[in-house]
């Protein structure tokens, strides 16, 4: 592993940002602690800022990490812990444990991107493994909220489609960078087929969207991409006609007030929470976040806006935007097509997922069953989100190595006499 120590300018910027973040969480957890004099809250008031400090200042010493990306990711993950502690402390403890595991997975991912030279073999191994993972819920899965996309191993539940997201990006990026059309197309179609059978249409939308956008990024072929968009629209119409629950969701999206006590209850409660929060929120620990159905997963953004207000909600959106901007910059700076596509794919996945869930919560688009990256409760979701960040970080660290090499080459100059 290369030892690129962060520059002084970078360390100053990281310190300034992380100190504000640490102050935010210290004051938030102390406030929650004052509510019930719960020692756990005071412990988190020290532990969370310490984790943020470690994550921002210590991890970059292990590998040439993009510190801004780390800082923003840490902030969003800790925000999930904070909001979950406010609503249900047990969820917060689980989330903190998932975060620790996911952080390790992220670091492993960075190492893998830097160390693996021959992704071809890995891609061919990942294809059957991923398809098998997607097939497992169809055989042993349990239906949850209309979709059969969970498997239960004892008390632990896993959503395989969250993990296959990562392998989708790797496989599609590899074959696209090699300009081999058929393998990635067949794989993507097989994944979509499995997800349709599971009735996990939200995840199918993400898979389709990311694959199409990656195709456009790799080929620049506007007509075929346009055809893909039309195909997606056609599939959406087909889904609407074939699946009753899709019709129901579209009807609820158009007018949730028509059946606000039953089918429209979720959206109505979410909209009322957003409105109740106003610009600066009802106050941390106040309000009624638990009246929102699935407040810990799909509607956690509504809880954030209710407690902290729309200004803070917009700040959270801006942080996602910053992550997307940074991810796209890293992808564009990659020297190899595969690495660029991997970083771009990971960025697009995070961006599309964020758009889909927040759009659903604020009734911009029909609600789908995806989670808010980094923030929503759930081990599978947090793991896949941080692994995606790990992919981007890995490519960022390779970019730093390449730039370092360029600077060395620049001192050599061109050969003469040709």
């Amino acid at each position, binding site marked *: 592993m290369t030892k690129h120590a962060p520059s002084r300018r970078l360390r100053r910027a990281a310190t300034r*940002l992380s100190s504000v973040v640490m102050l935010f969480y210290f004051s938030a957890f102390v406030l929650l602690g004052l509510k019930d004099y719960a020692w756990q809250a005071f412990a988190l008031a020290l532990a969370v800022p310490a984790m943020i400090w470690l994550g921002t200042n210590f991890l970059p010493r292990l590998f040439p990490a993009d510190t801004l990306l780390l800082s923003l990711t840490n902030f969003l993950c800790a925000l999930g812990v904070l909001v979950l502690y406010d609503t249900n402390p047990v969820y917060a403890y689980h989330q903190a444990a998932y975060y620790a595991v996911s952080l390790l997975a992220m670091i492993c991912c960075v190492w893998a991107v830097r160390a693996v030279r021959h992704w071809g073999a890995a891609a061919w191994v990942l294809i059957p493994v991923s398809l098998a993972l997607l097939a497992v819920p169809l055989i042993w899965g349990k239906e949850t909220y209309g979709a059969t996309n969970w498997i239960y191993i004892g008390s632990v539940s896993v959503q395989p489609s969250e993990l296959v997201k990562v392998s989708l990006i790797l496989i599609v990026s590899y074959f696209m960078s090699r300009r081999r059309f058929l393998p990635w197309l067949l794989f993507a179609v097989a994944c979509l087929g499995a997800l349709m059978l599971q009735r996990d249409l939200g995840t199918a939308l993400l898979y389709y969207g990311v694959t199409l956008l990656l195709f456009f990024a790799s080929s620049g072929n506007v007509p075929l991409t346009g055809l893909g968009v039309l195909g997606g629209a056609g599939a959406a119409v087909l889904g609407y006609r074939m699946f009753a629950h899709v019709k129901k969701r579209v009807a609820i999206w158009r007018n949730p007030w028509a059946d606000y006590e039953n089918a429209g209850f979720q959206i109505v409660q979410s909209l009322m929470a957003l409105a109740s929060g106003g610009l600066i929120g009802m106050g941390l620990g106040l309000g009624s976040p638990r009246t929102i159905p699935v407040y810990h997963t799909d509607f956690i953004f509504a809880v954030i806006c209710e407690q902290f207000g729309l200004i803070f909600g917009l700040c959270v959106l801006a942080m996602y935007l910053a992550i997307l901007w940074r991810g796209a910059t890293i992808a564009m700076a990659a020297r190899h097509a595969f690495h660029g596509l991997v970083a771009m794919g990971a960025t697009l996945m995070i961006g599309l997922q964020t758009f889909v869930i927040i759009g659903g919560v604020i009734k911009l688009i029909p609600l789908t069953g995806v989670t808010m990256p980094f923030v929503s409760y759930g081990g599978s979701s947090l793991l896949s989100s941080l692994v995606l960040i790990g992919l981007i970080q890995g490519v960022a660290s390779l970019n730093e190595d390449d730039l370092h090499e360029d600077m060395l080459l620049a001192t050599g100059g061109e050969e003469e006499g040709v």
Partner: protein
Amino acid sequence: MKDEWYTVIALGMRYWFALLGVLIVWRAFHWLRRDRREKHRRLRQLPDAGMVGEFVSLNDAGDMTVDDTLPVPREGVLGRLYSCDVPVLSPGVAKDHLDFVFEDGLGLRVRPRHGQTCRINGEELTRRDAAERGVLVHGDVLQVGEAALRLRLFSGLKFRRPARKAPTEERKAKAPKAAPGKGGERG
């Protein structure tokens, strides 16, 4: 703590959290802008960042004139389109003519697309024999269509000059050898 006291403190802290949220976003975007300026500064210092060398045109062909230079990135596509990594606007060059990738210690490996050919130092190269002979090193001449391009690799890059046989010697080397004491093999 009494609920009333907590409510008062929590209501007051709303402004604090909103302020910190805005401050975090401001710092993050400030960082992004500074990095962007730093990146542009570096690119000005390293105009060839990401490139391994350049092709120099040796003849006038189409829009290409003698001594025109085309920067060569580490990997990409050479073709007639502007969207190609190395656009060669000459007659006889296909839209996506060949793929290339720089291999450390070897040189610039080229692989013509289906149905395309090129010449390296006068020797024809097809897609089939690209794996064996399709490597360019510093000073080699690549002919695509009517364009003749000499490759200049940047100093510091490691490559190996392959021992190229004359065409007739290569054909002899490929011909099957007769087994001792037997007649020549058919085919």
